[in-house]
Protein backbone atom coordinates (compact mmCIF):
# COMPACT_ATOMS: atom_id res chain seq x y z
CA UNK A 1 0.00 0.00 0.00
CA UNK A 2 1.32 3.37 -1.04
CA UNK A 3 2.32 5.66 1.82
CA UNK A 4 0.45 8.59 0.28
CA UNK A 5 -2.77 6.58 0.14
CA UNK A 6 -2.37 5.53 3.77
CA UNK A 7 -1.83 9.17 4.74
CA UNK A 8 -4.92 10.16 2.81
CA UNK A 9 -7.11 7.52 4.43
CA UNK A 10 -5.85 8.28 7.93
CA UNK A 11 -6.49 11.97 7.26
CA UNK A 12 -10.04 11.21 6.11
CA UNK A 13 -10.56 8.99 9.15
CA UNK A 14 -9.40 11.65 11.61
CA UNK A 15 -11.46 14.36 9.92
CA UNK A 16 -14.72 12.42 9.86
CA UNK A 17 -14.02 11.38 13.46
CA UNK A 18 -13.70 15.03 14.48
CA UNK A 19 -16.77 15.88 12.40
CA UNK A 20 -18.66 13.16 14.30
CA UNK A 21 -17.51 14.65 17.59
CA UNK A 22 -18.71 18.08 16.45
CA UNK A 23 -22.04 16.57 15.45
CA UNK A 24 -22.44 14.91 18.85
CA UNK A 25 -21.50 18.05 20.72
CA UNK A 26 -23.56 20.50 18.65
CA UNK A 27 -26.50 18.64 17.21
CA UNK A 28 -27.01 15.88 19.79
CA UNK A 29 -25.64 17.70 22.83
CA UNK A 30 -26.03 21.27 23.95
CA UNK A 31 -22.60 22.77 23.37
CA UNK A 32 -24.05 25.76 21.49
CA UNK A 33 -26.26 26.73 24.40
CA UNK A 34 -23.47 26.55 26.94
CA UNK A 35 -22.10 29.96 26.14
CA UNK A 36 -25.19 31.67 27.43
CA UNK A 37 -25.20 29.20 30.30
CA UNK A 38 -21.70 30.11 31.27
CA UNK A 39 -22.54 33.81 31.43
CA UNK A 40 -25.54 34.94 33.37
CA UNK A 41 -25.91 35.16 37.11
CA UNK A 42 -26.69 32.97 40.11
CA UNK A 43 -29.43 33.33 42.66
CA UNK A 44 -30.20 31.28 45.71
CA UNK A 45 -33.50 29.76 46.77
CA UNK A 46 -34.25 28.00 50.05
CA UNK A 47 -36.87 25.28 50.12
CA UNK A 48 -38.31 23.24 52.98
CA UNK A 49 -38.27 20.28 50.63
CA UNK A 50 -37.03 20.00 47.10
CA UNK A 51 -38.44 16.53 46.44
CA UNK A 52 -36.44 14.81 43.70
CA UNK A 53 -34.90 17.95 42.20
CA UNK A 54 -31.41 17.32 40.80
CA UNK A 55 -28.49 19.48 39.75
CA UNK A 56 -28.78 20.68 36.14
CA UNK A 57 -32.56 20.46 36.22
CA UNK A 58 -34.13 23.30 34.21
CA UNK A 59 -35.36 26.55 35.71
CA UNK A 60 -38.47 27.68 33.88
CA UNK A 61 -40.57 30.80 33.79
CA UNK A 62 -43.94 30.48 32.08
CA UNK A 63 -42.68 27.20 30.66
CA UNK A 64 -39.59 28.75 29.04
CA UNK A 65 -36.20 27.47 30.17
CA UNK A 66 -34.42 30.46 31.72
CA UNK A 67 -31.65 28.69 33.62
CA UNK A 68 -30.38 25.54 35.33
CA UNK A 69 -30.08 24.33 38.90
CA UNK A 70 -26.38 24.71 39.63
CA UNK A 71 -26.07 22.91 42.95
CA UNK A 72 -28.14 21.67 45.85
CA UNK A 73 -27.08 21.41 49.47
CA UNK A 74 -28.57 21.37 52.92
CA UNK A 75 -28.29 24.22 55.40
CA UNK A 76 -27.15 22.44 58.55
CA UNK A 77 -28.78 24.97 60.91
CA UNK A 78 -32.21 25.55 59.45
CA UNK A 79 -32.51 22.18 57.70
CA UNK A 80 -33.55 23.89 54.53
CA UNK A 81 -32.42 22.84 51.08
CA UNK A 82 -30.42 25.55 49.36
CA UNK A 83 -30.61 25.45 45.59
CA UNK A 84 -28.36 27.73 43.58
CA UNK A 85 -30.03 28.69 40.34
CA UNK A 86 -28.05 29.78 37.32
CA UNK A 87 -30.12 32.24 35.28
CA UNK A 88 -29.27 33.08 31.66
CA UNK A 89 -28.10 36.70 31.25
CA UNK A 90 -30.97 37.86 29.05
CA UNK A 91 -33.59 37.22 31.74
CA UNK A 92 -34.26 39.51 34.70
CA UNK A 93 -36.62 38.78 37.57
CA UNK A 94 -38.11 41.13 40.11
CA UNK A 95 -37.10 40.84 43.76
CA UNK A 96 -40.47 39.43 44.85
CA UNK A 97 -40.32 36.48 42.43
CA UNK A 98 -41.68 33.17 43.76
CA UNK A 99 -39.65 30.00 43.15
CA UNK A 100 -41.43 26.64 43.29
CA UNK A 101 -40.49 23.03 42.62
CA UNK A 102 -42.80 21.50 40.01
CA UNK A 103 -43.03 18.20 38.23
CA UNK A 104 -43.52 18.06 34.48
CA UNK A 105 -46.33 15.61 33.92
CA UNK A 106 -47.24 12.86 36.32
CA UNK A 107 -43.94 10.98 36.18
CA UNK A 108 -41.69 13.56 34.58
CA UNK A 109 -38.59 15.26 35.90
CA UNK A 110 -38.78 18.01 38.48
CA UNK A 111 -37.89 21.60 37.72
CA UNK A 112 -37.88 24.98 39.41
CA UNK A 113 -40.59 27.36 38.27
CA UNK A 114 -40.15 31.13 38.67
CA UNK A 115 -43.18 33.36 38.84
CA UNK A 116 -42.36 37.00 38.34
CA UNK A 117 -43.76 39.64 40.69
CA UNK A 118 -44.38 43.34 40.35
CA UNK A 119 -41.42 44.78 42.21
CA UNK A 120 -39.35 47.25 40.22
CA UNK A 121 -36.13 46.09 41.94
CA UNK A 122 -34.57 43.18 40.05
CA UNK A 123 -32.71 40.16 41.44
CA UNK A 124 -28.93 40.46 41.10
CA UNK A 125 -26.10 37.95 41.25
CA UNK A 126 -25.92 36.18 44.65
CA UNK A 127 -29.36 37.45 45.67
CA UNK A 128 -31.83 35.22 47.40
CA UNK A 129 -35.36 34.47 46.27
CA UNK A 130 -37.50 35.43 49.23
CA UNK A 131 -40.62 33.41 48.57
CA UNK A 132 -40.38 29.75 47.76
CA UNK A 133 -42.76 26.86 47.57
CA UNK A 134 -41.66 23.30 48.23
CA UNK A 135 -42.12 20.25 46.11
CA UNK A 136 -45.37 18.42 46.40
CA UNK A 137 -44.98 15.13 48.14
CA UNK A 138 -47.44 12.62 46.87
CA UNK A 139 -47.53 10.74 50.20
CA UNK A 140 -48.60 13.90 52.08
CA UNK A 141 -51.24 14.61 49.48
CA UNK A 142 -52.73 11.15 49.75
CA UNK A 143 -52.79 11.19 53.54
CA UNK A 144 -54.38 14.65 53.60
CA UNK A 145 -56.97 13.48 51.10
CA UNK A 146 -57.74 10.38 53.15
CA UNK A 147 -58.03 12.38 56.39
CA UNK A 148 -60.36 14.89 54.82
CA UNK A 149 -62.46 12.05 53.43
CA UNK A 150 -62.57 10.42 56.81
CA UNK A 151 -63.71 13.67 58.40
CA UNK A 152 -66.44 14.14 55.76
CA UNK A 153 -68.22 10.80 55.90
CA UNK A 154 -68.99 8.65 58.90
CA UNK A 155 -68.30 5.48 56.84
CA UNK A 156 -64.85 6.09 55.37
CA UNK A 157 -64.06 4.49 52.02
CA UNK A 158 -60.60 3.81 50.71
CA UNK A 159 -61.62 4.30 47.10
CA UNK A 160 -60.93 7.92 46.18
CA UNK A 161 -63.35 9.55 43.79
CA UNK A 162 -61.64 10.78 40.66
CA UNK A 163 -62.58 14.47 40.87
CA UNK A 164 -60.54 15.55 43.92
CA UNK A 165 -57.68 13.33 42.90
CA UNK A 166 -57.22 15.08 39.56
CA UNK A 167 -57.35 18.42 41.32
CA UNK A 168 -54.44 17.31 43.44
CA UNK A 169 -52.13 16.49 40.57
CA UNK A 170 -48.88 18.22 41.43
CA UNK A 171 -47.53 20.87 39.18
CA UNK A 172 -50.80 21.57 37.46
CA UNK A 173 -52.38 23.30 40.40
CA UNK A 174 -50.47 23.59 43.66
CA UNK A 175 -52.53 22.03 46.40
CA UNK A 176 -53.98 24.64 48.72
CA UNK A 177 -52.81 22.64 51.75
CA UNK A 178 -49.23 23.66 51.03
CA UNK A 179 -48.62 27.18 52.11
CA UNK A 180 -46.39 29.78 50.54
CA UNK A 181 -43.51 30.38 52.86
CA UNK A 182 -42.82 34.07 53.43
Amino acid sequence: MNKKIIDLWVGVFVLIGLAGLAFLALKVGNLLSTNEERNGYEIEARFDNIGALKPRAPVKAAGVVVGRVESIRLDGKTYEAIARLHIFPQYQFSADTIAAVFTSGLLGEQFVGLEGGGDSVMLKDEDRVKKTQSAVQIEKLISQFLFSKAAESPTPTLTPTPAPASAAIPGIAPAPAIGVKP
Partner: protein
Amino acid sequence: MIAVFDAIGRVGSAVIAGVSRIGYATRFLFAILRHSGPSFMRPRLVIREVYQAGVLSLIIVCMSGLFVGMVLALQGYETLSRYGASESMGVLVAMALVRELGPVVAGLLFASRAGSAMTAEIGLMKTTEQLAAMEVMAVDPIARVVAPRFWGGVISLPLLAVLFSTLGVFGGFLVAVKLIGVDSGAFWSQMQASVDWRYGVMNGVIKSVVFGIAVSLIAVFEGYDADPTAEGVSAATTRTVVTSALAILALDFVLTVFMFRGEIN
Protein backbone atom coordinates in the same frame (compact mmCIF):
# COMPACT_ATOMS: atom_id res chain seq x y z
CA MET B 1 -7.89 -34.93 51.65
CA ILE B 2 -4.81 -34.60 49.52
CA ALA B 3 -7.03 -33.75 46.56
CA VAL B 4 -8.46 -30.83 48.54
CA PHE B 5 -5.01 -29.49 49.36
CA ASP B 6 -4.06 -29.98 45.73
CA ALA B 7 -7.07 -27.95 44.61
CA ILE B 8 -6.29 -25.16 47.08
CA GLY B 9 -2.71 -25.15 45.90
CA ARG B 10 -3.79 -24.94 42.29
CA VAL B 11 -6.15 -22.04 43.01
CA GLY B 12 -3.39 -20.30 44.94
CA SER B 13 -0.82 -20.64 42.19
CA ALA B 14 -3.38 -19.54 39.58
CA VAL B 15 -4.05 -16.40 41.63
CA ILE B 16 -0.33 -15.73 42.02
CA ALA B 17 0.20 -16.27 38.29
CA GLY B 18 -2.69 -13.92 37.47
CA VAL B 19 -1.46 -11.18 39.78
CA SER B 20 2.11 -11.37 38.53
CA ARG B 21 0.79 -11.23 34.97
CA ILE B 22 -0.99 -7.99 35.81
CA GLY B 23 2.24 -6.74 37.31
CA TYR B 24 4.14 -7.69 34.18
CA ALA B 25 1.54 -5.97 32.00
CA THR B 26 1.85 -2.80 34.11
CA ARG B 27 5.63 -2.89 33.79
CA PHE B 28 5.12 -3.38 30.07
CA LEU B 29 2.88 -0.29 29.92
CA PHE B 30 5.61 1.78 31.54
CA ALA B 31 8.15 0.35 29.11
CA ILE B 32 5.90 1.42 26.23
CA LEU B 33 5.52 4.91 27.65
CA ARG B 34 9.27 5.18 28.20
CA HIS B 35 10.00 4.08 24.64
CA SER B 36 7.31 6.16 22.96
CA GLY B 37 9.82 8.77 21.80
CA PRO B 38 10.32 7.33 18.31
CA SER B 39 6.54 7.09 17.84
CA PHE B 40 6.22 10.83 18.19
CA MET B 41 9.48 11.73 16.48
CA ARG B 42 8.47 9.65 13.45
CA PRO B 43 4.71 10.05 13.15
CA ARG B 44 4.63 7.88 10.06
CA LEU B 45 5.09 4.82 12.27
CA VAL B 46 1.90 5.72 14.15
CA ILE B 47 0.01 6.82 11.03
CA ARG B 48 0.51 3.38 9.56
CA GLU B 49 -0.97 1.79 12.69
CA VAL B 50 -3.90 4.22 12.76
CA TYR B 51 -4.59 2.99 9.26
CA GLN B 52 -4.35 -0.66 10.29
CA ALA B 53 -6.37 -0.30 13.48
CA GLY B 54 -8.72 2.59 12.69
CA VAL B 55 -9.37 2.95 8.98
CA LEU B 56 -9.70 -0.78 8.42
CA SER B 57 -12.24 -1.01 11.29
CA LEU B 58 -14.24 1.90 9.93
CA ILE B 59 -16.80 -0.03 7.91
CA ILE B 60 -17.68 -2.62 10.55
CA VAL B 61 -17.94 0.05 13.27
CA CYS B 62 -20.09 2.40 11.18
CA MET B 63 -22.41 -0.36 9.99
CA SER B 64 -22.84 -1.69 13.52
CA GLY B 65 -23.53 1.81 14.83
CA LEU B 66 -26.21 2.37 12.22
CA PHE B 67 -27.97 -0.90 13.02
CA VAL B 68 -27.70 -0.48 16.79
CA GLY B 69 -29.24 2.99 16.51
CA MET B 70 -32.07 1.66 14.35
CA VAL B 71 -32.80 -1.21 16.74
CA LEU B 72 -32.73 1.14 19.73
CA ALA B 73 -35.30 3.38 18.06
CA LEU B 74 -37.57 0.46 17.19
CA GLN B 75 -37.41 -1.04 20.67
CA GLY B 76 -37.75 2.37 22.30
CA TYR B 77 -40.86 3.05 20.26
CA GLU B 78 -42.51 -0.08 21.74
CA THR B 79 -42.18 1.27 25.25
CA LEU B 80 -42.32 5.03 24.78
CA SER B 81 -45.44 5.02 22.59
CA ARG B 82 -47.26 3.26 25.42
CA TYR B 83 -46.77 6.43 27.52
CA GLY B 84 -47.36 8.74 24.59
CA ALA B 85 -43.75 9.86 24.71
CA SER B 86 -42.46 8.72 21.34
CA GLU B 87 -40.91 12.17 20.83
CA SER B 88 -38.41 11.15 23.50
CA MET B 89 -36.98 8.52 21.18
CA GLY B 90 -34.19 10.89 20.23
CA VAL B 91 -33.27 11.25 23.88
CA LEU B 92 -33.31 7.50 24.43
CA VAL B 93 -31.21 6.71 21.36
CA ALA B 94 -28.70 9.51 21.92
CA MET B 95 -28.26 8.93 25.67
CA ALA B 96 -27.77 5.19 25.27
CA LEU B 97 -25.31 5.60 22.40
CA VAL B 98 -23.27 8.54 23.60
CA ARG B 99 -22.85 7.40 27.18
CA GLU B 100 -22.68 3.62 26.92
CA LEU B 101 -23.15 1.81 23.67
CA GLY B 102 -20.85 3.98 21.58
CA PRO B 103 -17.71 3.47 23.67
CA VAL B 104 -18.55 -0.07 24.80
CA VAL B 105 -19.70 -1.67 21.54
CA ALA B 106 -17.11 0.18 19.47
CA GLY B 107 -14.51 -1.03 22.02
CA LEU B 108 -15.69 -4.63 21.71
CA LEU B 109 -15.68 -4.46 17.92
CA PHE B 110 -12.26 -2.82 17.99
CA ALA B 111 -10.89 -5.56 20.26
CA SER B 112 -12.06 -8.31 17.97
CA ARG B 113 -11.19 -6.58 14.71
CA ALA B 114 -8.01 -4.60 15.41
CA GLY B 115 -6.84 -5.90 18.79
CA SER B 116 -6.71 -9.51 17.65
CA ALA B 117 -4.87 -8.47 14.48
CA MET B 118 -2.31 -6.57 16.57
CA THR B 119 -1.73 -9.58 18.81
CA ALA B 120 -1.43 -11.95 15.88
CA GLU B 121 0.97 -9.65 14.04
CA ILE B 122 3.29 -9.08 16.99
CA GLY B 123 3.06 -12.73 18.03
CA LEU B 124 3.97 -13.84 14.52
CA MET B 125 6.87 -11.39 14.43
CA LYS B 126 8.08 -12.98 17.63
CA THR B 127 7.60 -16.50 16.28
CA THR B 128 9.55 -15.75 13.11
CA GLU B 129 12.33 -14.10 15.17
CA GLN B 130 11.67 -10.68 13.64
CA LEU B 131 11.64 -9.13 17.11
CA ALA B 132 14.88 -10.90 18.03
CA ALA B 133 16.42 -9.76 14.73
CA MET B 134 15.49 -6.19 15.56
CA GLU B 135 16.99 -6.49 18.99
CA VAL B 136 20.25 -7.80 17.55
CA MET B 137 20.25 -4.87 15.14
CA ALA B 138 20.27 -2.67 18.26
CA VAL B 139 16.69 -1.56 17.57
CA ASP B 140 14.34 -1.82 20.52
CA PRO B 141 11.25 -3.76 19.39
CA ILE B 142 9.14 -2.05 22.05
CA ALA B 143 10.02 1.34 20.59
CA ARG B 144 9.82 0.29 16.97
CA VAL B 145 6.99 -2.28 16.89
CA VAL B 146 4.97 -2.18 20.10
CA ALA B 147 4.69 1.53 20.95
CA PRO B 148 3.46 2.67 17.49
CA ARG B 149 0.77 -0.02 17.51
CA PHE B 150 -0.25 0.95 21.04
CA TRP B 151 -0.60 4.62 20.13
CA GLY B 152 -2.33 3.79 16.87
CA GLY B 153 -4.96 1.95 18.88
CA VAL B 154 -5.27 4.67 21.52
CA ILE B 155 -5.86 7.27 18.81
CA SER B 156 -8.23 5.14 16.73
CA LEU B 157 -10.74 3.90 19.28
CA PRO B 158 -12.13 7.28 20.45
CA LEU B 159 -12.64 8.31 16.84
CA LEU B 160 -14.35 5.01 16.07
CA ALA B 161 -16.57 5.32 19.15
CA VAL B 162 -17.62 8.84 18.15
CA LEU B 163 -18.44 7.62 14.65
CA PHE B 164 -20.36 4.68 16.08
CA SER B 165 -22.52 7.06 18.15
CA THR B 166 -22.97 9.46 15.25
CA LEU B 167 -24.09 6.75 12.87
CA GLY B 168 -26.28 5.32 15.63
CA VAL B 169 -28.08 8.64 16.16
CA PHE B 170 -28.51 8.84 12.40
CA GLY B 171 -29.94 5.29 12.35
CA GLY B 172 -32.31 6.23 15.18
CA PHE B 173 -33.33 9.31 13.20
CA LEU B 174 -34.05 7.18 10.13
CA VAL B 175 -36.31 4.80 12.04
CA ALA B 176 -38.00 7.34 14.31
CA VAL B 177 -38.57 10.14 11.83
CA LYS B 178 -38.61 8.51 8.41
CA LEU B 179 -40.16 5.15 9.30
CA ILE B 180 -42.37 5.76 12.33
CA GLY B 181 -43.12 9.39 11.65
CA VAL B 182 -42.01 11.10 14.85
CA ASP B 183 -41.77 14.85 14.32
CA SER B 184 -38.24 15.66 13.25
CA GLY B 185 -38.11 18.92 15.23
CA ALA B 186 -39.23 17.25 18.43
CA PHE B 187 -36.73 14.42 17.88
CA TRP B 188 -33.76 16.78 17.70
CA SER B 189 -34.87 19.41 20.21
CA GLN B 190 -35.70 16.92 22.97
CA MET B 191 -32.37 15.24 22.33
CA GLN B 192 -30.50 18.51 22.62
CA ALA B 193 -32.39 19.51 25.74
CA SER B 194 -31.39 16.35 27.61
CA VAL B 195 -27.94 15.36 26.32
CA ASP B 196 -25.40 17.53 28.05
CA TRP B 197 -22.28 17.82 25.97
CA ARG B 198 -19.98 17.71 28.95
CA TYR B 199 -21.68 15.01 31.01
CA GLY B 200 -22.86 12.99 28.04
CA VAL B 201 -20.61 13.48 25.06
CA MET B 202 -17.29 14.21 26.75
CA ASN B 203 -17.71 11.43 29.31
CA GLY B 204 -18.36 9.05 26.44
CA VAL B 205 -15.17 10.22 24.76
CA ILE B 206 -13.21 9.81 28.01
CA LYS B 207 -14.57 6.29 28.32
CA SER B 208 -13.47 5.43 24.81
CA VAL B 209 -9.97 6.81 25.48
CA VAL B 210 -9.71 4.59 28.56
CA PHE B 211 -10.98 1.58 26.59
CA GLY B 212 -8.51 2.41 23.82
CA ILE B 213 -5.62 2.33 26.27
CA ALA B 214 -6.86 -0.92 27.84
CA VAL B 215 -7.53 -2.80 24.59
CA SER B 216 -4.32 -1.64 22.91
CA LEU B 217 -2.25 -2.55 25.95
CA ILE B 218 -3.83 -5.99 26.19
CA ALA B 219 -3.37 -6.58 22.46
CA VAL B 220 0.30 -5.62 22.25
CA PHE B 221 1.07 -7.29 25.57
CA GLU B 222 -0.50 -10.60 24.59
CA GLY B 223 1.31 -10.48 21.26
CA TYR B 224 4.66 -9.67 22.82
CA ASP B 225 4.18 -12.28 25.52
CA ALA B 226 2.84 -15.01 23.20
CA ASP B 227 4.51 -18.39 23.07
CA PRO B 228 6.53 -18.32 19.86
CA THR B 229 4.58 -21.16 18.27
CA ALA B 230 1.50 -21.34 16.07
CA GLU B 231 -0.65 -22.52 19.01
CA GLY B 232 0.87 -19.86 21.24
CA VAL B 233 -0.11 -17.07 18.86
CA SER B 234 -3.63 -18.40 18.36
CA ALA B 235 -4.11 -18.75 22.12
CA ALA B 236 -2.81 -15.21 22.64
CA THR B 237 -5.22 -13.88 20.02
CA THR B 238 -8.14 -15.53 21.78
CA ARG B 239 -6.94 -14.17 25.12
CA THR B 240 -6.79 -10.67 23.68
CA VAL B 241 -10.44 -10.73 22.64
CA VAL B 242 -11.67 -12.33 25.88
CA THR B 243 -9.58 -10.18 28.24
CA SER B 244 -10.37 -7.00 26.31
CA ALA B 245 -14.11 -7.68 26.47
CA LEU B 246 -13.97 -8.28 30.22
CA ALA B 247 -11.75 -5.25 30.77
CA ILE B 248 -14.06 -2.98 28.75
CA LEU B 249 -17.17 -4.06 30.64
CA ALA B 250 -15.52 -3.87 34.06
CA LEU B 251 -13.93 -0.48 33.34
CA ASP B 252 -17.25 0.75 31.97
CA PHE B 253 -18.92 -0.04 35.27
CA VAL B 254 -16.21 1.71 37.28
CA LEU B 255 -16.19 4.77 35.03
CA THR B 256 -19.98 5.01 35.01
CA VAL B 257 -20.03 4.96 38.81
CA PHE B 258 -17.59 7.87 38.92
CA MET B 259 -18.99 9.92 36.06
CA PHE B 260 -22.72 9.73 36.64
CA ARG B 261 -22.73 9.52 40.41
CA GLY B 262 -24.36 12.93 40.63
CA GLU B 263 -27.37 11.74 38.72
CA ILE B 264 -27.98 8.59 40.70
CA ASN B 265 -28.18 10.52 43.98
